[in-house]
């Protein structure tokens, strides 16, 4: 397996979605560059040549795995190719080169008929500007994918009501999208994408159109939902704080390339290059890094306090102030638990102070 996975805690889980060497090029004749079979493409050379010859390589040689039950966040600035990537994964647009496998099935080779079946049962997608059908009510919008499958009225409405309750919109079933606030519209988008019970869930900047307070609230609800549903998720965002809050792993993109993949802590603590470091400099580490991120397996006999692995370092500060120097970390969520020393925590936060001083 490629090096991207070496440091993953999710290694033991099954791969749900596998993406290898995917390219998407806009321009007059993109396929011309990919039709020769068998020879190895040198990404940087080809990208330079494409640019020189009037093409726009929006996605350059993207490879990664998404594991079952994982929240995989793709993060990058505007125009870095995030939407292009997620549209290739869902086949709303066709990649020019590469392979994409869902549960071992080659998505790029799927016929239109097969693709429709996959979308009807395995995939759900949420859009930045919601994509609700203006002529349908909340209930009808949510039931729309079921209607397309030919499900009977009573059955699909019952299922849609369930989804609407799940996202907390009960009572608004008869409203039209134009009568809802942005946050409410996106709840409908979420309910609709969940109606068919997909295993793989794409969200393209679902909360970017919302104001910060609502966004925060929607993120919490998203985490609550995922706790219940345990979907495999590809989540797009350009907001590093959002990425750190939600992600199991983050893929960082720049100019069509994936430049680093790792857990939020890995990205924050060992950025791959200057660009990433600058990007993450603003993040308050004490809030984002959790005890479990720093825990080591080797037991520390001098541990005097216990703490849950999903607690942020912030929560440890009072205990360190009270004189505790070693902690036992209890397993929580995706963290296996272990032990951590106060020195290590202070070193990490000191590192932050140093970077801040540099930037400032």
């Amino acid at each position, binding site marked *: 397996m490629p090096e991207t996975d070496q440091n993953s805690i999710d290694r033991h889980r099954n791969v749900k979605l596998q993406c290898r060497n995917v390219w998407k090029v806009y321009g007059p004749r993109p396929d011309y560059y990919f039709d020769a079979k068998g020879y190895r493409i040198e990404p940087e050379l080809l990208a330079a040549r494409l640019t020189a010859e009037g093409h726009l390589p929006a996605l350059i040689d993207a490879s990664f795995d998404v594991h079952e039950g994982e929240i995989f966040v793709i993060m990058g600035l505007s125009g870095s190719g995030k939407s292009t990537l997620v549209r290739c994964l869902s086949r709303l647009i066709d990649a020019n080169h590469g392979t994409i496998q869902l549960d071992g099935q080659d998505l790029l080779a799927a016929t239109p008929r097969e693709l*429709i*079946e*996959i979308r*009807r049962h395995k995939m759900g997608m949420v859009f930045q500007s919601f*994509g609700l059908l*203006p002529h349908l009510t909340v209930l009808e919008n949510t039931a729309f994918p079921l209607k*397309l*499958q030919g499900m009977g009225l009573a059955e699909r409405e019952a299922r849609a009501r369930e989804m609407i309750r799940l996202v907390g919109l009960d009572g608004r079933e008869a409203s039209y999208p134009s009568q809802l606030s942005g946050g409410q519209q996106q709840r409908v988008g979420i309910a*609709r994408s969940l109606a068919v019970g997909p295993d793989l869930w794409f969200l393209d900047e679902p909360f970017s159109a919302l104001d910060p307070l609502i966004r925060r609230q929607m993120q919490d609800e998203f985490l609550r939902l995922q706790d219940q549903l345990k979907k495999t998720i590809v989540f797009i965002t350009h907001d590093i704080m959002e990425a750190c809050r939600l992600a199991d792993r983050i893929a960082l993109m720049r100019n069509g390339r994936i430049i680093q993949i790792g857990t939020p802590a890995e990205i924050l603590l060992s950025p791959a290059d200057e660009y990433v470091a600058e990007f993450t400099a603003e993040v308050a580490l004490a809030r984002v890094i959790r005890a479990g991120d720093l825990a080591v397996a080797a037991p520390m006999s001098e541990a005097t306090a216990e703490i849950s692995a999903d607690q942020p370092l912030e929560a440890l500060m009072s205990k360190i102030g009270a004189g505790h120097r070693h902690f036992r970390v209890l397993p929580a969520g995706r963290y296996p638990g272990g032990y951590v020393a106060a020195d290590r925590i202070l070193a990490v936060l000191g590192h932050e102070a140093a970077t801040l001083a540099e930037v400032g």
Partner: protein
Amino acid sequence: MASPLFRWLLLFLFCLALVLASPFLPWLAAFPQGWTLPLADVLNTWALPVFDILQGPGRALAAGLDLPLRGLRAALEWLPWPALAGIVVLLALRASGWQLAVVAIIAQAGIVAGGYWPQAMNTLAIVLMSLPPAVLIGFALGAAAHRWPRIEPATVAALDVMQTLPAFAYLIPLLILFGFGPAPGLVAGVVFAVPPMVRNTILGLARVPAEVVEAAQMCGATSGQLFWLAKVPAARSQLLVGVNQTVMASLSMVIIVAVIGGFNDIGWEVLSAMRGAELGRSLMSGLVIVAMAILLDRITLGFASPGRTTILGQKKFRIAFGAFVIAGVVTRLILPEVTFLPDALGRNLARSIDATLMDFVVATGPFFAALRDGLNYGLMLPLRIGLLGAATPTVWGFTLMPWMIAAYAIVFAGGAFILWRRTPTLAIAILFVGLALATGITRFPWPGVVAMALVAAWASGGPRLFAMTSGALGLIIFGGLWAAFTQSAYLTALAVVLCVLIGGALGLLAAENDRASAILRPINDALQTMPQFVFLIPALMLFRVGEFTALIAIMLYAIVPPMRYVEHGLRNVSPALVEAAVQMGATRSQLLWQVKLPLARPVIRLGINQTIMAAISMLVIAALVGTRDLGQQVFIALGKADLGLGLVAGFAIALLALIADRLLRD
């Protein structure tokens, strides 16, 4: 390659040489008859046999169309008018609200009182009959152009021709195919009403947000589901705007088509009243058309508006609708003979209006005659035959002396010379204007016009526009239509210049003054909803038959775009820029002339473009009140059922409109 300025200067010198040479070479001023080709005859000999073969199926189709039309007419005639009127009021209520319902009541009461109810119903029957085919064909074509983007340019080009080709021109082949009767009118209505539906379908489908389409795809929609369950409903309101424009186009056409007669409808009523110089009758029937147009427009627009809140729910509407129908049927069954229509009232009204109007026209006659003659001799004649032609003892009462010509030449040449430094483009324009005013638009040497048109076409549209222009000019010159063409050019140019000046000034006023805007808006709305035909009536009333009357009719129709676009352009200048200018200390007039007008230029230009298109499309209809232009040729061809002449002249007009549009677009 010569610079553009130099090129135009050369062109001017060429034209000047032609003008100077024309007294010695008469073929320069007027294209000699002997040089023309019998294009129309050739067309006739080729096309007529084909039409002979098609005539059988054509007549059969006409008979087939006639049947449902008769049925519809009979139904509308059979139901007592209060039931039908009640249904219209219900529709108005449901589409918009009380205001429109009140308008509907008043309008229909007027139609009944005027005695025009049966004619109005006959017109409505043709419009309603032409609607389903026009909407279906238009929707299918639009959907096809959306599905296969490669055919879209060809579709749009075909639509342009369909809409600019004068109605009378394609009435001729339809007449030959279908014979007299309502069928050709119906088909012409459909042909004319299809383009707006196609355009709105293309626009509506293209405007469906990408995310709506993608969301439906991700829900697993098949391509059929994607189209029918997502795109079409999402484009609903644009599609309904298409239906609205289709109704209006069809109404306008159905009224024009009345010139072929044989159908007791409201268009025929206007036409026969105009021919008989019965002012009251023509005015009243004209008002009936206006009332119908406004009702049809507002009701269909009401249904198209996206955020429509209705005071009449679906259920109540259905019950009330059913009640009116049942009441109507029952009444008719009990009282089979009663029409409920007042018979004497309308005629008496028309007669008294006639008398009053006659008095008014007689009383104001001298004034309007003076106005007409003044403008005729002072403006139109010199424009048409030039100062050289007008300044004669018979027209202006004096002979042109050589010193006058010299003074004239010096004024224009001097003006151009002074302007040359600062704005050379304007200087050259002045030279051309001076030359054209001297010879008159219709007597300008034709090789000069051809050269100018071709150079302009090449410069702004490249080889394609050049080819199109050559084709159009060839058709005109060799088709023997040069004289008619110059008349058209002169009439259009005059109408456009006057419209832009007057309409532009009004638009400017409306942009700067909210009260003026509030007064002008409903006037503009009304002018825009009226079928073109109606504009002839007031012009005819005040000025009698003649070219001046045609000019007034054209202007009434073409004055709306400059008003609309100037106001819109000025009002939509970014407020931030206006604030910045005010902050810099600009006075109100500086703000207008140096900030707003330059910024609004693209919009105003579009308005001028629309003015030209409107004026050209009105040419043919204005021919009814007496002109000598291409429109008149088409009209003559219609009278003689001369397919070839009609097509040549019709296509000449269509091409001119298209070329003018392309030339001014960028």
